[in-house]
């Protein structure tokens, strides 16, 4: 029988044991208690307070990588890879901790440090610096949220730097 009708697709349908474990056997609506959600959100907010210190450490590391790019051009590709990794981490975290500007600057830094063929120019190194400076300003000024006027100024000056260095590249 089996050889006559080879199986093309198998569907596995299991009893929902996870629901039994978490909601019991009784039917009806279950939810996560609002108190638990609120408590967890509070814990998250409390941890967020430590975020600026932590990200400052990363910014120092980015500065070191930038310095290495300036001092030893032959290491630029390795440095860019490292910078790209750090930017990726930061991009995922800033918004979670109330610093969406870090996310957006890190996103931009991540975007242009993705490895492409060819040499890495001095202008690209300058662009790294512009990003690092912008992020440092965000953390130093504790510019959380969209940052209002300061945030706008920072974004604008970073965008100006991008436009300037990309044009002359």
């Amino acid at each position, binding site marked *: 029988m089996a050889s006559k009708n080879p199986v093309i*697709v*198998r*569907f596995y*349908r299991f009893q929902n044991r*996870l629901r039994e474990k978490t909601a019991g056997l009784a039917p009806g609506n*279950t*939810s996560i208690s609002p108190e638990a*959600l609120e*408590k967890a959100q509070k814990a998250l907010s409390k941890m967020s307070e430590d975020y600026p210190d932590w990200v400052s450490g990363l910014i120092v590391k980015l500065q070191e990588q930038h310095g290495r790019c300036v001092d030893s051009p032959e290491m630029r590709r390795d440095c860019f890879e490292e910078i790209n990794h750090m930017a990726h981490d930061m991009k995922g*975290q800033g918004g979670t901790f109330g610093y969406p500007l870090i996310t957006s600057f890190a996103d931009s830094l991540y975007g242009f440090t993705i490895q492409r063929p060819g040499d890495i120019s001095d202008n690209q190194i300058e662009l790294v610096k512009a990003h690092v400076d912008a992020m440092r300003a965000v953390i130093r000024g504790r510019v959380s949220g969209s940052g209002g006027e300061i945030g706008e100024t920072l974004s604008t000056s970073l965008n100006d730097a991008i436009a300037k260095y990309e044009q002359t590249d």
Partner: protein
Amino acid sequence: MSAYDFDRVNILLAEDSPFIRSLLVSSLKVLGVGNVFAVEHGGDAIHFLQRVKNEPMKVGVQQIDIVISNWDMHPVDGMMLLRWIRRHKDSPDRFVPFVMITSYTEPERILQAREMGVTEILAKPFTIKNIGEKLISIIERPRQFVHTKDFFGPDRRRRKYDVATERRILNDKSEGVEIIRG
């Protein structure tokens, strides 16, 4: 409406950033999750799952109910972990719900994870509400697993279609369809 009791739930968490890891552990704990086993990358997660299979008494857990993993980790990333869980003969539970955390949300990346059998994607940056929603989706809307010659994972179709608009060629009564219940 009653509240979920996550006290007997065992979660394996693979996340390389210490900051995000401790954040996730404490968030899950505050939500009431009984056991959160946190490891630093996919390789450690595989090692842990092997131990759960081979020496559950020693590890102190019989079964992992949900795996939550970051995508971008070294040396073994989230995709390699997912592939191992879904396909490797040593995997203790090929059907375990798998939540992938990622800040790469480009459609092709999401598709790639889906084709590998991911259950849910948690995009960074996330909130507690996002985490809660993923847990509820896993508990309330589990999908059947589909096994074909080139796919193994939760059904990639989440919506229920009317018969008239259903494009799936095979149904439960078709030849070549085997249904396994458990």
